[in-house]
């Protein structure tokens, strides 16, 4: 699915989180929204998911206006910064949640749900943790479960908010590779938010550098490194 963001702006009370920004995301791309905290990158991601609504502007999915669509209708797989796993449910139930939440006639049978959940747990290389609770997993395992849960709904795109933010350096590197592989197998349009320029440059096809609610530059990692469009981009990516 390709996504177009047209002149999206967002105001919170008195402040402006996003000045009108526009961006095209090609189908199947892996995009990084890169910027310091307060740059509006998470707000933009949440607007794509339908968790926030823009003050003005439009979002188009495959050329169709999706601005008014509810979160549920958008079917965007979302991985939250601290994963937001359901702490009172087993890992199996966490991953199965999106399938069970479907309308009755679209809901898979119990056997089918079991098959799909197990396949996803294999995809994230944690096949044997179905019976455990989130509180019993390490940070890296939780992150992968959150990814599996988001993938279970057969999403039209994948959105990740600081997916590696709470992890130590070694696990980060592993999981980056894991995300790349999952992106390449599923072919899903994927947008992730990060403040870590290494992560953005290494993982993304296209990097969107943001600052103070504006998009400073959009480009391939090599191009941004070679030809930064502004002083901000130069100083932020040089770090």
């Amino acid at each position: 699915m390709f996504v177009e963001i047209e002149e999206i702006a967002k105001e919170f009370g008195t402040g402006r989180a996003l000045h009108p920004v526009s961006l095209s995301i090609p189908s199947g791309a892996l995009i990084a929204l890169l910027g310091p905290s307060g740059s509006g990158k998470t707000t933009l991601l949440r607007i794509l998911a339908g968790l926030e609504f823009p003050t003005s502007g439009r979002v188009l999915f495959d050329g169709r206006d999706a601005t008014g669509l509810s979160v549920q209708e958008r079917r965007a797989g979302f991985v939250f910064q601290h994963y937001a796993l359901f702490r009172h449910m087993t890992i199996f139930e966490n991953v199965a949640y999106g399938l069970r939440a479907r309308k009755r006639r679209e809901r898979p049978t119990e056997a089918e749900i079991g098959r799909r959940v197990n396949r996803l747990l294999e995809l994230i290389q944690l096949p044997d943790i179905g019976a455990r609770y989130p509180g019993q997993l390490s940070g890296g395992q939780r992150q992968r479960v959150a990814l599996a849960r988001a993938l279970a709904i057969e999403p039209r795109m994948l959105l990740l908010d600081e997916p590696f933010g709470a992890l130590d350096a070694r696990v980060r590197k592993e999981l980056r590779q894991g995300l790349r592989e999952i992106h390449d197998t599923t072919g899903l349009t994927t947008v992730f938010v990060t403040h870590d320029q290494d992560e953005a440059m290494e993982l993304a096809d296209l990097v969107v550098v943001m600052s103070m609610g504006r998009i400073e530059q959009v480009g391939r990692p090599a191009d941004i490194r070679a030809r930064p469009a502004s002083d901000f981009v130069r100083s932020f990516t040089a770090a």
Partner: protein
Amino acid sequence: MSDTNLMTRPTPVTTEPRLARHILIGTVVTLIAALLFAPLMAVFAEALRQGWAASFEGLTSPDARAAMRLTLIVAAVVVPLNAVFGIAAAWAITRFDFRGKAFLITLIDLPFSVSPVVAGLALVLLFGANSWLGAWLIDHDLRIVFAFPGILLATLFVTFPFVARELIPVMMEQGRAEEEAALTLGAGGWRIFFTVTLPNIRWALLYGVLLCNARAMGEFGAVAVVSGKIRGETTTMPIMIEMLYNEYLSVAAFSLAAALALLALVTLLLKSLLEWRYADLLAITRRH
């Protein structure tokens, strides 16, 4: 050298010396025994002073039975209502930002800061025969004051904060993330409430409901003002106990008091049982 140093300090650094621990624990146990346990035992002893038969007779008199029935009915109506109101209030306060939120929180606390007697008087002023509204209601054959509805309203007012007060801090701490996650997974409002919100707050809710229930059955001040003390009709257990006591029927009074205390103890026991039964699950889900 350093090894021997380590060997001489086997206890964790946060532990107090043995003597201090014994004194602290001893003080607490003595206080609990003297201030909580002894008075309760005195009530049961007084109730049984003339034997089980006399005590049983006191409990089975028509007036006492009517009082017990009324108290249980009031609790059975008030507790579910306040559980629903409490969840709704806590949900609104912790999940949405709106004008006047601070005022709403103050309002929820109002029954804690206002004396129950004042609350009862307010109801009499509002719905009594001397008020415009009260006169209109009486004309239409709707009695509020000195009748069941008044007792219900008074109890509702006094017990309103318990559930909301238990839920608000828990829901604040848990935040919106899990509910947002459920939204992105396609769940609707009711499904999210029953599968995500409610399971996460169930212990706080249970605790709030138990406190609310204990207070609903035990409320005296506000109910005393609006009840009118019509024997067998508008006397709840606490009111009946006071009336019996004033009439020097101490065995009957203390028997009823013991029954009221037992009701409270049973709810506490239930809570402990549930906690014990689900201890493993509790430990897992809190450590997140």
